[in-house]
């Protein structure tokens, strides 16, 4: 059986324009065999959720550098629930202080990868969370 390609939407929410991290991760995931859509900059949560629905992705990855990760995570998860697509995996990368990682996980974020995370670690985690969702 051929495995379906994992589809990932990478997104930069709100006003911040520092997208080196998002683009680098996009290239790494693509090299790992995943299908990547990148929203580009300055997206509202609504735009991100709509893109995720339209592209029918398995994973939404947010890149956040501004310190607003907790509130963005809450808003996104709430919107996913409202659209009844809360089975979509959500991961967050960027400038995330260590003490906030358990808080994000408690909210329901499936993986947190602060700057410096290894590509292997990110791809392995994504594959694992998709496999677990599929069970």
């Amino acid at each position, binding site marked *: 059986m051929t495995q379906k390609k994992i589809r990932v939407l990478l997104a930069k929410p709100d006003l911040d324009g520092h997208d080196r991290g998002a683009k680098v991760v996009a290239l790494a995931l693509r090299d790992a065999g995943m299908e990547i859509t990148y929203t*580009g*900059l300055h997206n509202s949560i609504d735009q991100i959720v709509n893109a995720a629905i339209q592209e029918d992705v398995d994973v939404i990855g947010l890149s956040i550098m501004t310190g607003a990760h907790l509130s963005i995570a809450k808003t996104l998860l709430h919107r996913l629930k409202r659209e009844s697509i809360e089975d979509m995996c959500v991961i967050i990368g960027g400038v995330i202080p260590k003490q906030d990682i358990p808080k994000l996980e408690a909210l329901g974020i499936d993986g947190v990868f602060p700057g410096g995370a290894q590509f*292997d670690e990110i791809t392995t985690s994504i594959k694992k969370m998709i496999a677990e969702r599929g069970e």
Partner: protein
Amino acid sequence: MGVAKYIKNEKDAIEEVIYQSGIKVKPSYGPDDLKEVGFDYEKDLADPGQYPFTRSIHPQGYRSRAWTTRQYTGFGTPAETNGRFKMMIAHGQNGLNVAFDLPTQMGLDSDDPKAKGEVGRVGMAVDSLKDFEIAFKDIPFDRIGAGLTINANATVMLAMYQAVAKKYGYPKEKISATPQNDILKEMIGRGAWIFPVEHGVRLVGDSIEYAVKELPRCSPVSLCGYHIRESGATPAQEIGYSFEIARAYIENVVARGLKPEEFVGGFSFNLNVYGNLWEQVAKFRAARKLWAQMLKEEYGVTEPKKLFLRGLFGGGGSGLTKAQPENNIIRSSYYALAAALGGAQTTALCSFDEAFTIPTPRAALLSLRTLEILMDEVGLRDTVDPLAGSYFIETLTKQMEAKIREEMQKIKDLGGMINAVSTGAIQSEVANQAYTFEKGMQNNELIKVGVNKYAEEEEPEVELHEYNETWAEDQIASVQEVRRTRNNRDAVRCLQKLEQITRDGLNVMPCLVECCEAYATVGEMTGVFREVFGEWREPNIF
């Protein structure tokens, strides 16, 4: 992030060194190397202060004047920022470099729903002239110049700076402002763009054209190879792309009937300092020469002063790490050394805690002290261009020059910088470079101390700047009061006029000054441009 690739044998001896720009470095250099690269003292260097200015734009370098220090500063409300400005000036800083929050940079007022959570977070919130009145209170405009780190709506901030100076009794002929105002680089890295490419470039052109006539001491555009490098480009690309961006602005202004000679003196540069020390120094020296040559040979500029590559060489943010943050203090010292050996006119350093958030006062002061120690203690003012004549540095400078030319040619082959940005070709190239570096770091080909070598399990606690929610509340109350108490008829009339002028393709600057003086808000003024220009849609590079 890595500085260079070192290929070692099993005994840990270095067999090969390759710099980021792709130059291979030999174990030793001598006179034959200079011959091989065709080095000629008069043609390639000349004395300091002489064309092509490779060695320095001034005959005596830092003897006649030390560099200007300009730490990037701004957070919370204008009042908070004014306090920090004064503290830095009291400690010897002699220029300002203003950090604006993201809503201001994106032309949104602090009470705009899209600004929520970001007001005063990564810089100072500015909504109207009232905020500049507070931020620049008691700042001597004739003595202290201000860098304004803003791009998409830099015209608005330049106008506001003129308006506040006038309010405090400084005529526009006396003020010295350097708005960043480099929208093409914003589209390649950093991302605070708003309008489509051609409209963005038109606004840059408007401010250059205006400054030539009205703001003789201002540098209306600062070409920022800095952020392009931060986004992943090599040092050669950093310079090559900056020059091709400059070309796009020059052509816009030439099309208005001005001669390059009349306005290129207002161009300055913002360049990066992290990475391999020798490569950076060679980069700055080669850049000075190429810029002077480009202006003279291609644009017929003759007055020597107009051929100077003047710049802020500093920052180095991408070189700093969250791991073992105190190491950043050491790193920044070496980055500052690269700036000094490279002949920077102005400098600033990222502070050691900036891999986390914006700096605490203590961290900002430490950066200032680092710069002061170089000038006052260890001898960087002694003699100009002290590395000149080194077989290695002169060979490397020539090689760097060739690499920069190659990068410029690639942009020309893509149909020029505006085209390269519009199609995403350049963004794609820079992203791929960033990916290559990151892979190099992850497989230990590039070394970062404390990250992939000598890493420690335990991370030390660092005191960090904390964001205060009440700043946003205060700022929102303040902008609402401005709208309530200003002469609204005046503000609306000015904004309507701005819309007409924008549509008619006339220079927006004089009217923006009127708008600022009528307390129109940043959101309203930028909103006019949004209405007329629309917003840019990024090309998809994946």
